[in-house]
């Protein structure tokens, strides 16, 4: 019997495990994927050592990665960190594509993530109440603020203090400064569009390794931009680099890999979860593990599937689902709303290093009330580069030979990449259910994911692209490419909302401590808990909720309240 079981070892599970272990609990972490060895990380590979020049064989890509290949981070050097779609099928309606980008292994997607790290603000936590949409968050910014501090300090976040209400500052290491192209853009945007800010992207890479980072064996970021392959310097936050080793050091963690959680065992007499049913991914043997408290951190869709698959006579709609909200309100961020522009009059300077971030434009619409044709708002991630090299010459007809080499040696023009991230509203019809007949190879029901963008999102996407072009042009840019439609639902890889927090147990799944309303010893701290999506990259919020809930659960356990 363990004190606690944490399902999933990714971004949220790693932190939940660390925080529970540090409070003296004996913790079992169940991870459906395999272990990750140092040799699985490929950041040592020089460009000329990349298998097939970084490309996955075309036939393999088509057969095994039709969905994962939509993700920019998939390459021949990272494919070991992505699921094979052929092995992990799911269903969607024919007219509603959903791109479920996943990594099933120790560390989950914290290995490949883009490390952009932003707080939600008071405006985000009160948004549902203000707009009468979705479930009102049972917490406000002040509840989470100390936990944001706690996580930022532990993982290490580089960023600048800006004093913006809509994007609160945090505990930051020095930022990766903007380059000169970005500084010129910043001054043009901030003078042409009062209220907009162009700031260094906040990123979970150690610009400096402080004492407590070095004590974890972490070194400063070497500015290589190889992060999605892993990092031998442990310079960015992942469960492998930070949270799981911290949990391990307490001596309180047991981690079992290849442990696919099938369902939770619920005792109707005590109304407690008493155990977790697991299928061994390799042998298919079944085991039930017991614990006093269970944290589900199997990721937004994974957690919904576990709850739905735990239906019983006492809880026929799925565990902790008296509200019928489990699986509903699936959100993501609108993504891939790109503007690419060149700046012929950019500054005559360059930069050194491959910075692991770029710039960020915090939300500036609907800040102090409702002013737009759509609710909520959006931010942008982007950056300026002068790449030159082969990318510069391939598009020039007739350029070959010595002249081609000479041209490729030149720095390219300053080129801006600007990508909007738009808030998506909670909508109960955007929904994960268990497919009634199709199973995976372990006999578990496949997910059926049905989600689409609505009218609010459509109007917002148009504004994102209008603003992107206007900002590029105001700064002297010539727009060379735009994409007018957001990518498929899911491709923002910020899927969330399938077990929303709320004040009202009839319309939400989780209370203010991420504890299910229905079953007191069951906590959910991955993206499923989100009641609204904000437009900020969400992982920091999942981690802050995980730490806060772990602290609460440990106290409740000590007080005999569970």
């Amino acid at each position, binding site marked *: 019997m363990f004190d606690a079981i944490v399902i999933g070892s990714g971004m949220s599970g790693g932190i939940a495990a660390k925080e529970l272990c540090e409070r003296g609990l004996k913790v079992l972490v169940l991870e459906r994927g395999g272990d990750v060895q140092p040799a699985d990380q490929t950041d040592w590979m020089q460009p000329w050592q990349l298998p097939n020049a970084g490309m996955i064989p075309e*036939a393999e890509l088509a057969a095994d990665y039709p969905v994962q290949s939509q993700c920019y981070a998939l390459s021949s050097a990272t494919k070991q960190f992505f699921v094979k779609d052929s092995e992990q099928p799911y269903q969607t309606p024919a007219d509603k594509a959903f791109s479920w980008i996943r990594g099933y292994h120790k560390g989950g997607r914290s290995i490949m993530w883009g490390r952009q790290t932003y707080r939600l603000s008071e405006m985000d936590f009160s948004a549902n109440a203000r707009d009468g949409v979705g479930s009102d968050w049972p917490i406000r910014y002040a509840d989470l603020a100390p936990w944001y501090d706690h996580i930022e300090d532990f993982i290490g976040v580089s960023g600048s203090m800006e004093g913006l209400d809509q994007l609160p500052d945090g505990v930051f290491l020095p930022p990766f400064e903007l380059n000169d192209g970005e500084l010129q853009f910043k001054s043009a945007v901030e003078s042409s569009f009062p209220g907009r800010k162009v700031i260094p992207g906040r990123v979970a890479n150690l610009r400096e390794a402080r004492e407590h980072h070095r004590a974890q064996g972490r070194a400063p970021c070497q500015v290589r931009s190889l992060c999605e392959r892993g990092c031998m310097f442990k310079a960015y936050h992942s469960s492998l680099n930070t949270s799981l080793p911290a949990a391990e050091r307490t001596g309180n963690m047991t981690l079992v890999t290849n442990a696919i959680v099938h369902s939770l065992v619920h005792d109707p007499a005590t109304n407690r979860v008493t155990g977790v049913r697991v299928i061994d991914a390799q042998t298919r043997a079944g085991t039930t593990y017991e614990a006093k408290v269970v944290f589900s951190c199997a990721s937004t869709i994974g957690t919904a599937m576990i709850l739905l698959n735990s239906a019983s006579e006492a809880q026929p709609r799925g565990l902790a689902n008296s509200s019928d909200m489990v699986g509903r309100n699936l959100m993501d961020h609108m993504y891939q709303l790109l503007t690419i522009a060149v700046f012929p009059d950019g500054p005559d300077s360059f930069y050194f290093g491959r910075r692991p971030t770029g710039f960020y434009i915090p939300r500036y619409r609907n800040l102090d009330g409702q002013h737009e044709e759509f609710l909520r708002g959006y931010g942008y991630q982007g950056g300026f580069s002068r790449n030159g090299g082969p990318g510069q010459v391939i598009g020039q007809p007739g350029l070959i030979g010595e002249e081609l*080499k000479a041209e490729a040696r030149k720095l390219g023009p300053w080129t801006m990449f600007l990508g909007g991230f738009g808030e998506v509203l909670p909508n109960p019809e955007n929904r994960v259910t268990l497919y009634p007949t199709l199973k995976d190879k372990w006999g578990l029901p496949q997910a059926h994911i049905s989600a689409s963008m609505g009218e609010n999102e459509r109007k917002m996407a148009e504004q994102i692209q209008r603003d992107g072009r206007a900002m590029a042009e105001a700064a002297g840019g010539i727009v060379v490419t735009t994409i007018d439609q957001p990518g498929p639902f899911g491709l923002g890889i910020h899927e969330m909302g399938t077990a929303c927090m709320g004040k009202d147990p009839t319309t939400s799944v989780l209370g203010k401590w991420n504890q299910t309303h229905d079953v007191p010893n069951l906590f959910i701290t991955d993206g499923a808990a989100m009641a609204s999506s904000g437009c900020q990259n969400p992982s920091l919020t999942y981690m802050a909720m995980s730490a806060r809930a772990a602290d609460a659960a440990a106290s409740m356990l000590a007080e005999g309240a569970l």
Partner: protein
Amino acid sequence: MGAKGVDRRTLLARALLLVGASVVSLPFEALAAVEADLLSDTQRATLVAAADTLVPQTDTPGAVDVGVPALFEGLLANWAAPATATALADVLDRLAALGGGFAALSAAERKATLQAFDAAALAPSDAPRANPFGPPPAADPAYQQFKELVLTLYYLSQPALTQELAYTHVPGRWESSVIVTSATRPQGGPGMF
């Protein structure tokens, strides 16, 4: 298909001699993985001649010096789907016919011929842009892919990344503003900003 009894290295070495390349520095390991003879002698000779013409030796190594033809054959064997391999082989056939036998032309003739072909093949087309980060759509997408692969292989090689460009695997620091001099080169390698 290659002549019986002659291994691929020998064939490639012969083709390389046509363009006067040194065979010492070639990454022949790349060939070990090639199981089927994917290119005819003429296609192979054309590949070498085209790679050499696209990226010749100057004060730095050229595409042939860094082993692009062998690596390209490696991609045909290990990466390309059948339709892609066929389209790329077809490009080689079309190039082979240039000037009545491309590989046999003098270096100057090869350059003039390929330049004219390249200019027509890469003329902009109205096709929708498939990849916002890739090159703009061109009249002859198969040739565009061929050229892109040759350039990618060349600019991923250690000599090109360190002599033509200024790649360092571990920059170790971020400097947000650096003065540009006549010696400044692009950094190459991964990363967008």
